[in-house]
Every structure is written in structure tokens, then in C-alpha cells.
């Protein structure tokens, strides 16, 4: 199987653009397919989230299959929350067999923030261990050391949180992810470019690509809600005020502007190797953001 398109791009100097799609809660995938269609040519790859915020949905792997069917480049988000090492490895084997080779390795949100709070949290492994697990599969063995029939090959990503209020332990973990085999990182939502700049100054020593996470906010209310309820997100007061300043119904427009401005600056000042746009339910506006930010992905 040929090397994935996305991995090739990681080795180039291109400004990379990824975005993400949340699968539906249910079996009607038509809207998701619509989103894939309008996004697949505007970005380098599309993440499919894995029960994001611990809310049960159509699976990530199924979403990736749809992206593939539609001709897009999927990134499989894989969390350790719901599957033990058997299930994780099995899903990876299936993914590879269907040419899904980009995997974003995550620990996963806590069960407590989701809609199945009574469920058993699995966390048989964490994100670092998942990266190692996948590299082990690539060596032709499963994690228990048994031989595999056929050997998979993946392009591995992980996440990092440059705006964490206590950054040092996050950096320790970041280095462990690098050591475990992560090739690219999609960061948590960035609002403060100063912290991104500080992080990049440090991260540039590693042979990896950093894609700055851009969250598209649709209203001040949403921003506040995310601050309170979504793990790892810190929207600064200034941005909330900016969103609150516009008249009702124009919030999303403002959010698009904010995101586009961030992206333009990141690109102009070379603050990262690319961006990862998280539109959280407003996937259809991603092309508008890219247009406003004057970012276009290279065609192959």
C-alpha cells in the first residue's frame, strides 16, 4: 500500500490544513457526507472525532470509512476511553486494511463530561501507550508479542496543549509522545498567539509537525459554555467580549472573522506548520474561514 498522502505532506514544507467532523448521533449520515464533500478538497485531511466529549455517536472508524469513500483523506481519532488493548488493536487492523492510516492518538475525555456518565471508563492505556502500541503493531507483533499476519504502517499524531495553565507537565508528556512515535501534533484550541510562539520556540527542536488548533466560536454563550464544560479549552475574556459585542445572529460571522484572523497571523508569522480547524457543529463554514484567511491547500 502506498504511503499516505498526508504523511507525504508532513515531509514537505507546505502549510498544512486539517479540520474535523463529528459524526452524527444516529444512522443518518447524509449531513456528514455533505460536510465531507464540501471539505475534502479544501483541506489536507479530515479528522473524525471519537465520541467527542464522551458523547456516544456514530463511530470514528465508520466516519473515516465514509471520508475514504467520498475521496477524502481521513485522520482516525482514537481514544483509550472506551476500548481495552484488544479492541484498540483490532480497530487499528481494520483501519489499516481499509487504507485508513492516519491516527490521532488521544487519551480521551473523561466519562463524567459526557452523556453516559454511568459507563465504565476503560483507560486500559493512555495516549503515550497507544502510540507505543501502534508502533509495536508496525513491528509485526501485537502488544503481547504475538506475530501478526501482515504488517500495518501508520502515520501517527497526538495532541498537545500549549495554553495549559501549568505547562511543564504537559511538555514532559509531549516529549514522551514524541519519543513514542508521534509525527504530528494537533494542538488544543489556540487563542493566545504568545503562548503558541513560546511553545513553537521549544517544539521546533523535535522532528515533528505542529498544527495549531483553531476553534470556531459561534457566540459568547458558546465560548463561556466551552470554558466551563469542555476539557482543556480556555477562551480568553477579550474574545468572549468581542463575540458579545455583535448583534444577535451575527455571532458565527464574528467567530469566522476571529478564526480567519488567527489563521492569517499564524501563517504570516510562521507560528506553526499548519492549522487544525475545529468548527464544532459548524463544519460547513470551514471553507469560508479558509477563504477569509486566504489559505489554499496545495493540489496534487
Amino acid at each position, binding site marked *: 500500500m502506498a504511503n499516505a498522502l498526508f504523511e507525504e505532506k508532513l515531509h514537505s514544507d507546505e502549510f498544512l490544513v486539517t479540520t474535523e467532523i463529528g459524526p452524527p448521533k444516529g444512522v443518518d449520515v447524509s449531513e456528514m457526507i455533505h460536510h465531507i464533500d464540501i471539505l475534502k478538497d479544501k483541506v489536507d485531511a479530515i479528522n473524525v472525532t471519537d465520541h467527542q466529549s464522551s458523547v456516544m455517536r456514530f463511530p470514528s472508524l465508520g466516519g473515516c470509512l465514509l471520508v475514504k469513500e467520498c475521496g477524502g483523506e481521513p485522520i482516525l481519532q482514537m481514544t483509550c476511553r472506551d476500548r481495552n488493548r484488544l479492541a484498540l488493536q483490532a480497530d487499528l487492523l481494520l483501519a489499516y486494511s481499509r487504507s485508513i492510516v492516519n491516527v490521532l492518538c488521544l487519551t480521551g475525555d473523561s466519562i463524567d463530561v459526557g452523556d453516559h456518565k454511568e459507563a465504565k471508563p476503560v483507560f486500559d492505556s493512555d495516549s503515550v501507550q497507544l502510540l507505543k502500541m501502534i508502533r509495536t503493531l508496525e513491528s509485526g507483533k501485537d502488544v503481547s508479542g504475538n506475530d501478526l499476519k501482515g504488517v500495518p504502517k501508520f502515520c501517527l499524531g497526538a495532541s498537545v496543549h500549549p495554553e495549559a495553565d501549568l505547562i511543564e507537565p504537559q511538555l514532559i*508528556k509531549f516529549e514522551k509522545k514524541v519519543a513514542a512515535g508521534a509525527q504530528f501534533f494537533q494542538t488544543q484550541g489556540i487563542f493566545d498567539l504568545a503562548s503558541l510562539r513560546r511553545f513553537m520556540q521549544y517544539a521546533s527542536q523535535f522532528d515533528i509537525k505542529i498544527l495549531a488548533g483553531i476553534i470556531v466560536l459561534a457566540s459568547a454563550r458558546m465560548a463561556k459554555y466551552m470554558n466551563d464544560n469542555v476539557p482543556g479549552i480556555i477562551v480568553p475574556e477579550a474574545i468572549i467580549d468581542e463575540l458579545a459585542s455583535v448583534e444577535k445572529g451575527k455571532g458565527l460571522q464574528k467567530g469566522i472573522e476571529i478564526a480567519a484572523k488567527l489563521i492569517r497571523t499564524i501563517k504570516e508569522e510562521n507560528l506553526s506548520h499548519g492549522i487544525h480547524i475545529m468548527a464544532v457543529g459548524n463544519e460547513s463554514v470551514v471553507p469560508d474561514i479558509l477563504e477569509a484567511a486566504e489559505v489554499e491547500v496545495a493540489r496534487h
Partner: protein
Amino acid sequence: MIVAEQKPLPEIRRMISPYERVLILGCGTCMTVCDAGGEREVSFLHNALRVAQSKGGNEAHHFLESTLKRQCEPEFLEMLVDKVGEVDVILSLGCGIGVQAIAERFPDTPVLPGVNTSFMGISSEQGVWDERCAACGDCRLEDTAGICPVTRCTKGILNGPCAGTKNGKCEANKDMDCAWVLIYKRLERLGQLEKMRRYYPMRNFRAIPRPKRLVRTPVALGEDDG
């Protein structure tokens, strides 16, 4: 210490409803300390059930009270032999261990759990208990500055904090400390941050095949002197 919480009164009433003579059995050790099933709680539950009965319930129970020093030792259970003959059911305010010990000792008498056994932990202040140990059978507190990530991190992860930590608190509960922030700070204070930089492989769950049994093998005579 084992920490538990008394079951809600309606649940207890539902459980005992088929039985007439009920022995409310307290436990003098952990359940006393965590205020879930000591002599005071036995007496309080007894009173509560009697009030329930007198205020319009259709039940007609007879209650007996007793509190053993420990329900989880067969020797202590022997003291119950006479009482058990006089009742239809034992409502145990012991932890899950006590309930099962009673079930083993008295095969012909139903036993009901009066508490929900919650965890092993410490009392950080009067009336507040915090979980501290998950009895995972594979202790790594040496590497984590004496703070257990398996117990105190909601995800039980071993290689550092997730991105959900904010203001030193956990994403699952804003009042709960992030175990990994605590570990980081303490390792830093101890000058042992290299322990955190180390990669920790996935846990070995074989360390605790359930149910677990611990057998302390006596040292054979003479083995010591080689």
C-alpha cells in the same frame, strides 16, 4: 480504611419488606469510622424504620439491634449464632465483605446489604472521606511521589496529565485535584522529575486476577539460615 455510605431508607425498606424479624447488624470497625454502620447508625436506622412503620407504613417488622466488632471475621460471627435463630433476615451495615462473610457463615438466613461499599480512603476532615487506594495489586507510588494516579486520576493514566486539567483541577470534577498536577509538583519539590519523564507501559491487570487471594506462605524451617 473501607468507606461506605448507608443505602437510602426507601431501598432498605423495600429490601426488608418480605421479612418480619430483622436483625440490624452494625460493624465496629471501618463502618463505624466512616459513620455508615456503627452502633450509632444501627440505632438511627432502627429508629428511622420504626418511625416509618408507625407513620402509616403497612409493615409489621420486629427489629433486633447488634453491633459486632468486625463482621468480616468468622470468630466474631459466632457470637451471632443465637440471635440469627430468632430472625428472618440480617440487614448488615457491614461493608460488602461483612455481608458475604455472613452469607458464608449462615447459609440458611438471607442477608441484605445496608450500605453501599464505596472505596478505600482517608478522612480528610470530619465527615469527608477521599478515596486513596484502588487495591490494584501493582503499587507504583514510588514513581509518582506517593500520589496514586490509578486512584486519583479519573482516567487512571500513567504517563502524565491529560489536556483536560485546568487550574490544577480535573476535567471530570472542578473540585477535585488533578492527580498529575499534584504528582508533578511533588516530584519537582523532591527533585525527581526524571521519574515523570520515564515511559510507563500499560498496567498489568494480571496482577489482580479477580477474585484475588493472598496467601502468606510461612518460611520453611531452616530455609532462612541457608
